[in-house]
């Protein structure tokens, strides 16, 4: 079992004819991901490495019953691509694009909620259910099937830690990179709930960062709702506090957002927080009694 995606998930690629889109589509296909189509307006009817290309997401969904879409279109057009997928009835949208204006993401948020669309990212590496389905730009070779759920805001730090887990014999059910943008789709809390309900997942590794209160909310959720063990790491403990956003930034965060606060919240929720990434596999094994 896994969360969000598995070997049957039908995936389409928005921006399949672009450089990154084409490259990662072939990588995903090689991994075994069930890529059923791509979108490139005006190029409908053609194909990219055997994958049929459609003019609109609507047409693609109609023809393929796609359930997930991964977005590689440039930042100025990415929010619109998310909306197109959402209004076409795609249930899970993964937006890889980085550099999307924050207002665009703020505008998109309530519409996705209304349409019942789950968004991962933007500015994220995607997600993977090892051995079954990879959606995004994750380096597939470091992942291995197992019983650990994994959630992270960052890219290479994810790879770093997953690699350690794999080397320590701790395979993964699903690994999700939720993206580092200020406003993004699914947050830790949403994914923790899915992992808690996934029979195959026995523990969760959560990699957080400074800024926002998503980690604090996650800690609160774990405290109240989770039975499965969680191990956390927070990046940015040494980052200077200087880059704050006027009075408003100080007022709205009112103390939260620092690594200190986040570590405190996790500790209070009974979640061990690794001092450095290298400690994570050991903490997980401890929690699992291995």
């Amino acid at each position, binding site marked *: 079992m896994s969360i969000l995606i598995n070997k049957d998930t039908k995936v389409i690629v928005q921006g399949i004819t672009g450089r990154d889109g084409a490259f990662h589509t072939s*990588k995903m296909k090689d991994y075994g991901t069930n890529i059923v189509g791509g979108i490139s307006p005006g190029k409908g009817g053609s194909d990219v490495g055997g994958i049929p290309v459609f003019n609109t997401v609507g047409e693609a969904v109609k023809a393929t019953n796609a359930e997930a879409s991964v977005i590689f279109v440039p*930042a*100025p057009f990415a929010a619109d691509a998310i909306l197109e997928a959402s209004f076409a009835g795609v249930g899970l949208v993964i937006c890889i694009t980085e*550099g*999307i*204006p*924050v*207002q*665009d*993401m*703020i*505008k998109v*948020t*309530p*519409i996705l909620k209304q349409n019942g669309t789950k968004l991962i990212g933007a500015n994220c590496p995607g997600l993977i259910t090892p051995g079954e389905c990879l959606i995004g*730009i*994750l*380096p597939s*070779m*470091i992942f291995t099937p197992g019983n650990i759920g994994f959630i*992270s*805001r*960052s*890219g*290479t*730090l*994810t*790879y*770093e830690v997953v*690699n350690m887990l794999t080397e320590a014999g701790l395979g993964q059910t699903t690994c999700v990179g939720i993206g*580092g943008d*200020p*406003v993004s789709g699914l947050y830790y809390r949403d994914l923790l709930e899915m992992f808690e309900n996934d029979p195959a997942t026995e523990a969760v590794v959560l*990699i957080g*960062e400074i*800024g*926002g*209160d*998503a980690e604090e909310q996650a800690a609160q959720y774990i405290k109240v709702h989770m039975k499965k063990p969680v191990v956390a*790491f927070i*990046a*940015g*403990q*040494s*980052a*200077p506090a200087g*880059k704050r*956003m*006027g*009075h*408003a930034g*100080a*007022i*709205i965060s*009112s*103390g939260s957002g620092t690594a200190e606060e986040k570590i405190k919240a996790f500790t209070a929720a009974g979640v061990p927080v690794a*001092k*450095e*990434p*290298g400690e994570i596999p050991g903490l997980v094994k401890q929690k699992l009694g291995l």
Partner: protein
Amino acid sequence: MKIHEYQARNLFKKYGIPVPDGVVCHSIEDVREKIPNDDKLRVIKAQVHVGGRGKAGGVKLARTREEAIEKAGQILGMDIKGLTVEKVLVAEAVDIEKEFYVGLINDRNSKSVTLMASAEGGVDIEEVAKTSPEKIIKLSIDPTLGLMDWQARKIALQLMNDPAQIRQAASILSKLYKLYIETDASLAEINPLVLTPDKRVLAIDGKMNFDDNALFRQSEVLAMREVTPDEQKEIDASEKGLSYIKLNGNIGCMVNGAGLAMATMDMIKLYGGEPANFLDIGGSSNPQKVIDAMNILLSDTSVKAVMINIFGGITRCDDVARGLVAALKSIHTDMPIVVRLSGTNSREGLEIIKEFGLPTVSTMSEAAKKAIQLSKRKV
């Protein structure tokens, strides 16, 4: 991206938010030319991209033209937190009956633009937020509906009493929101928003930041950009595909990925060192990026050692290593460098680096310890 107070004032005026009369001056001659010879009370304010200018002596009152010239002369050229004051705003000082705080910010927690207002405006607003959070009104704005007039009015009603003042304040809130959205701002503050004895509502001081990701569609905002030398370095880096932030330590970091870069800095600190920067070179084995990144690190004279921390994902470590070697060959420096490679084909990669003659390690903690050790050797 930040702008000066006088630039925020200009945007306020464009959107119909009332501000006191004022001019920006670049020199004493400028003040002499622009300020009429009357005895209006004026305030001279340093225009620098840093907070706390009041406490640093960058804000002064002047009762006459002569005094304005004198005070402007004192402020121009002043150093505030490392920045030289090159402009002053000379604005009419207004009588103040009451001070309010009004701010808009992109709130990542509510995933919306949040409006904040308080009847306790002024310099101590953060203190108010801490000690009496109930005195800060917060409203999370629905992005598809925008700030509706009745909502702006509802907030104004909590700040003021007189129907005419309420209308003025509500209208200012609506205009500020419009300005915020139309310019892709990430922060807009009026502090203080004041009520004068003659019942006008005025924006006395304004602050605006903008979303860097949206500058491609905000040419007017971009045209206001003015950067400090440190920021210029960050911008230059970003044009080369690098994300760079200067810090105060002495260990230069070169990492692929922002999260890993942060974790690297944490690691250095954990073992008693101080990172000199945040530097994310992104994901490719292109030697040019490494050369550019190295040049940035070497141009920082406080850097005593460099830690290169690369995780090979889709780009394999052996390719990354070849790129690193190609880059380092073209740079002539005696800077101590430690290289750590991990991920796909890391063994092969480390072998290549070792052959080139640099110290290599395979874990982040080792790399951090080694870099700290090397930094102490170099004087």
